[in-house]
């Protein structure tokens, strides 16, 4: 790994679950990402922050396969997945939620979550149509049990039969998380899981994310604008600005970084602007 030494806490011997190497993404003349590298270790809760248009979602799209980076490599679990199709990534253990709600709005909550188990189910259109004969029913019921575990965990029992499109915003976000969890991913990508939520919903969501990370052992990459949450629950944070990586490190270190303050968090006093940027090497 050719990581810059900026992230002091990151340089340990544990091999990375996700290794992003020198990713660049261009749309014609627009550079959405330029030469971004970072890695995420197994069991880590990693946050990406930055101003609007900084390339956070583009970064996530490169990892989830929506975009193919113009340069660089994405290595997941020791395997180069840079060119892998998005639907194949579910099978190797990458799940995600979307910034704008992306539920199957005409399906029930239960069916939405069952779609998350698509790659784990074996029945096909033929055995599915026979249902009782080819073992499809047995399999569906087994997986229903697993889905119910996820439903219990995210506390959405009361809406499991409701049509997804009729739910409130906060609940939909939770169903979307449930769907991604049902995939049983090793790495889960959360794109602004708390956007547009009130304080109580945010607290709940933060709890779920921490539980997923600590109890379910999932590695998480999260994009979030709520600095309180990000700094409280993340193990490490990366800051993007104009498609470049500003800094990466533990929350406290990132918070203290004058460049980050200038680009994103806002300055408290003028002296930071005049301070020399020598302290930061990233």
């Amino acid at each position, binding site marked *: 790994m050719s990581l810059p030494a900026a992230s002091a806490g990151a340089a340990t011997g544990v091999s990375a679950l996700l290794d992003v190497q020198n990713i660049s993404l261009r749309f014609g003349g627009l550079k959405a990402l330029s030469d971004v590298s970072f890695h995420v270790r197994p069991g880590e809760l990693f946050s990406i922050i930055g101003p609007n248009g900084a390339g956070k979602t583009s970064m996530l799209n490169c990892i*989830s396969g*929506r975009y193919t980076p113009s340069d660089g490599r994405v290595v997941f679990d020791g395997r180069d997945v840079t060119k892998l*199709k*998005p*639907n*194949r*990534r*579910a*099978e190797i253990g990458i*799940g*995600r939620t*979307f910034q704008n709600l*992306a*539920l*199957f*709005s*005409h*399906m*029930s909550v239960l*069916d939405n979550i*069952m*779609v*998350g188990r*698509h*790659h784990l*189910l*074996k*029945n*096909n*259109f033929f*055995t*599915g*149509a*026979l*249902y009782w004969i080819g073992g*499809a*029913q047995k399999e*569906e*019921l087994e997986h*229903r*049990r697993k889905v*119910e575990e996820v439903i219990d965990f995210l506390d959405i029992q009361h809406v499991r*039969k*409701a*049509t997804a499109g009729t739910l409130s915003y906060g609940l939909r976000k939770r169903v979307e998380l449930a*769907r991604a969890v049902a*995939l049983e991913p090793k790495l889960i990508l959360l794109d602004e899981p708390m956007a547009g939520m009130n304080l109580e919903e945010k607290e709940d969501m933060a709890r779920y994310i921490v539980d997923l990370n600590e109890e379910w052992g999932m590695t998480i990459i999260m994009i979030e604008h709520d600095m309180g949450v990000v700094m409280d629950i993340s193990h490490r944070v990366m800051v993007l600005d104009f498609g470049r990586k500003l800094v990466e490190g533990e929350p406290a270190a990132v918070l203290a970084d004058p460049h980050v303050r200038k680009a994103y968090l806002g300055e408290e006093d003028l002296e930071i602007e005049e301070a020399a940027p020598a302290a930061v090497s990233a």
Partner: protein
Amino acid sequence: MALTSLRPCGDYRTSYKADQTIFQTRLTLVFVILAIAALCCTPLFASRYVLSLMIQIGYLGIAALGLNILVGFSGQISIGHAVFFGFGGFASAFLADKGVPVPLAIVLAGLWTTVVGLIFGLPAARVKGLYLAIATLAAQFILQDFFVRAEWFTGGTHGAIAAPFTLFGYDLSGDARYFYVVLFFVVVGYIGATNLMRSRDGRALIAVRDHYLSAEMMGVNLTKYRTMAFGISSFYAGIGGALYAHYVGFMSVEGLDILFSIQFLGMIIIGGLGSIMGSLMGTVFMVLLPEATGWLASALSGSVIDQVLHLKDGITYMREMLIGLTIILFLIFEPDGLAHRWRLIKAYWKLYPFSY
């Protein structure tokens, strides 16, 4: 998409199996079985005219269900459904002519049509919406032309003779007996589709329709499922067409035009896109609408309206106009179709008289 409110009080589910049933209450199941039993008795007393209408509803209903799987469930469009219906008919007539037993020929015709549907569904892997509509329009014209030219297969413009339906030596061709054949295929076809939609691949089809980006992230192969929808849709169309061919005893390229394809679209729009029973309701509506127009016209014969509009001469035009008019009215007032209306009626009576 079950309406939980339709479950009676105290109906608690204690196993996942009990919760995944097709029929939400025992009463519904009993009603459905009674309805099928009642249908089994119809040939005993119904007239040939009524029976022929019901058979027509049967084979068209199967084909309409196929189109609904494609348009309603997987969110794609096809304006060439009639030629797949026709292909099934020709294939079955062809196979029966070559000595294949008719029941087997019908199933094989379904499979052949699946293959043809998959080929013409290939553009679906790359294009969506209006562009796909044009691609299926090409299928309509290509196959229609093929039917006229491929005389070895279809008998060209003269058409092909389809052997009567026999099963283990029993002749099941007349209206009263063929009715059971069609009923069997309808029941099996509709149960199959219902099961499909509550298992893995059916869910994937709906997921692709509702949000293809997130479906892809959930591991659904978009190309595979978009093409598969065409395959399944054509299979149903082929079976429907084959049943038609052996009912009439004759298959011809006439009538397999684009208007017929549009009529299939009309059936599923009126019945309810994305609803399995809606496909059947829409077919019933579309079959009975021209008949009802005829009844109305003969009831009015001799009256002032008849004298002004010349109903007897204009009846064919009026039928076409009525079909167009109903589709427009449904799109405006009941875009979710008859199936939705039926759900509302059920909910109304469930809560009657305390609807709030």
